[in-house]
């Protein structure tokens, strides 16, 4: 499962820790939500970047007190048709101001890349190598957007209003 960040296929620095496994020292880790909530105080004092794998049926509001200590949050797409994590991502970015890495995991396919980027994801555990290889061109597919989202793109309506104010037409 290739990992894409900054538009390129990269090595995953993070190590996944399963439920009861011992926590390795210093290396960046991703722990499951239940483990994180049970040992949060201890985990945030540990040396090394901390990530959490958060399920899509749990409110991200629960993470709010810990966001300053998290370097990465991985949100899950158990099926690509199950789009709950798009809402979670936008809430983390826009409501809670999470500035760390947001990773999409699970059934992550080419035709979601554009939506994922717009929802605030910046790390992609892509299911198929062929899809990962065309990440950049897939994301570039749409040059205009109608609505504001977590990627900060200026939506068409605002651009039109600005153009009208400056006397230009689009």
């Amino acid at each position: 499962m290739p990992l894409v960040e900054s538009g390129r296929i990269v090595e995953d620095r993070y190590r996944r820790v399963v439920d009861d496994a011992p926590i390795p020292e210093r290396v960046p880790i991703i722990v499951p939500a239940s483990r994180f909530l049970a040992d949060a105080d201890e985990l945030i004092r540990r040396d090394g970047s901390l990530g959490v794998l958060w399920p899509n049926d749990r409110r991200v509001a629960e993470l709010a007190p810990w966001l300053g200590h998290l370097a990465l949050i991985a949100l899950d797409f158990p099926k690509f048709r199950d789009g709950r994590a798009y809402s979670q991502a936008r809430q983390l970015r826009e409501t809670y101001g999470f500035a760390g890495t947001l990773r999409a995991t699970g059934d992550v396919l080419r035709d979601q890349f554009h939506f994922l980027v717009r929802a605030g994801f910046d790390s992609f555990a892509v299911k198929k190598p062929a899809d990962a290889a065309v990440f950049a061109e897939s994301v570039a597919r749409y040059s205009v957007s109608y609505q504001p989202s977590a990627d900060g793109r200026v939506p068409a309506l605002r651009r039109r209003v600005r153009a009208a104010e400056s006397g230009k037409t689009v």
Partner: protein
Amino acid sequence: MYLYDAFDRTLVAERVAEFRDQVARRLSGELTEEEFKPLRLMNGVYLQLHAYMLRTAIPYGTLSSAQLRMLAAVARKYDRGYGHFTTRQNIQYHWIKLAELPDAMADLASVGMHGMQTSGNCVRNITTDQWAGVAPDEIEDPRIFAELIRQHVTLHPEFSFMPRKFKIAVGTATNDRAALRIHDLALRLYRNGAGETGFEVMVGGGLGRTPFLAKTIKPFLQKRDVLSYVEAILRTYNQFGRRDNIYKARVKILVHELGPEAFAKEVDAEWRSIKDGNLALDAAAVAEIAGRFRYPDYEKLDDNPRELAAARRADRGFDAWMGNCVANHKLPGYAIVTASLKPEGGTPGDATATQMDAIADLADRTSFGEIRVGHEQNLVLPHVAQRDLVALWRELDAVGIAVPNVNLVSDIISCPGLDYCSLANARSIPIAQEITRRFHNLDLQRDLGRLHVNISGCINACGHHHVGHIGILGVDKNGEEFYQITLGGKADQNATLGTLIGPAVPYAEVADVVEDIAAAYLELRQRPDELFIDTVKRTGVEPFRERVYAAR
């Protein structure tokens, strides 16, 4: 008309390019059918019984003559010379080849049309009153807000993989011609006691196997908050709507299971966190969209020109058409004309390429180049000068679309049913055709008065059978087509779901049953002007049930 600008055109062109790539990957086998399905669905492409079907969006039912001509051209070039107008004010082509789909879409894109979000688990085509902008009873043009919402939800990064489809309607008139309460989300503009205009927000309506009328969750929403409130509703639904069972995935089930108050509370909490952000609509933003709508350069005319009255006296056929197909326009000297797509023995909502071209030409000559599609599956010329009505009538009649049966028993709403649809249990179209033959006598139809017959070929209720005055639902009984009959449903401002009258009847008896119901009504009504729906309300379904099942 809403005029597309460079943004709109670029997006549609990029969409066509993306779909061309997806079709190529499907044809090469790189994509499995399972992976391709949600992608094609987001472009309105279904796989039906015999072929792929392409559904093309007609936002809020407004078409230019150039667009209608292109719909005709696509019907000729890629289909079998006709199209089917749907209850969502869209058009469907039923015989498209997968390999030709990208070209068909590119042709449509050349006139600003597309199939985006006409299927799939996203926000579907926004619908409204087909008389928007010309109805005498409207507060303001509902299409401004329909367009604002349409743009906002188009390729929305957060709401393209929701639990299920999501249908929005906007209404701004006293009389509800948009069937607001059967939508997932309906916005009704009205003026409150303080003289301000704002929206009543209703959520959780829908037909299908568990029909519900939408509940009001916010009695008065300021216009500035429309986008943020819609966003909060969609976010709540996206997170908490059920995904374990496709039949329980619509927002109506979530609203029902949580209760409207708890749902509203959840929405409100989300809304408060975003309402003053970048979705708040200022006057400049609304004016920007409103400014892209072009209105006709109307003349100053008098109502009821003398030659019109003379023509009505001179020709009974014209007089009947005037009485049935022509409605009041908000401006004096103009009229709204409905062209019935429900001829005797026809398929409700079907129009041939020849008819579409003819209507496009007539729209250019008599309706400022504009056409509307109504959810009742008829076409409308919205800006006709009254002095042009006689000539228009003759020309519509020449192509078979001047039948004066609007709102009468043969003006049937019907889904395509088992003749096309892979979901259907039973045929709808032949049932509709047989009913129009039984009631071919227009004097009888007029005597029966306003009477809506709605037919669905399966429980998904695309033919809106629950809200038909007479509702007909096809079901499968041990491999045979049977039909349940409901009475008393309606979709207007007093929306009501129909009541089942008894056991389902076999295919061959459906038209007999409708005749029995009509005969019972003629005996039961207190006065000739007591409408069918009012008689059913007064008597209940019992006397109709007795009549229908006495001989069965």
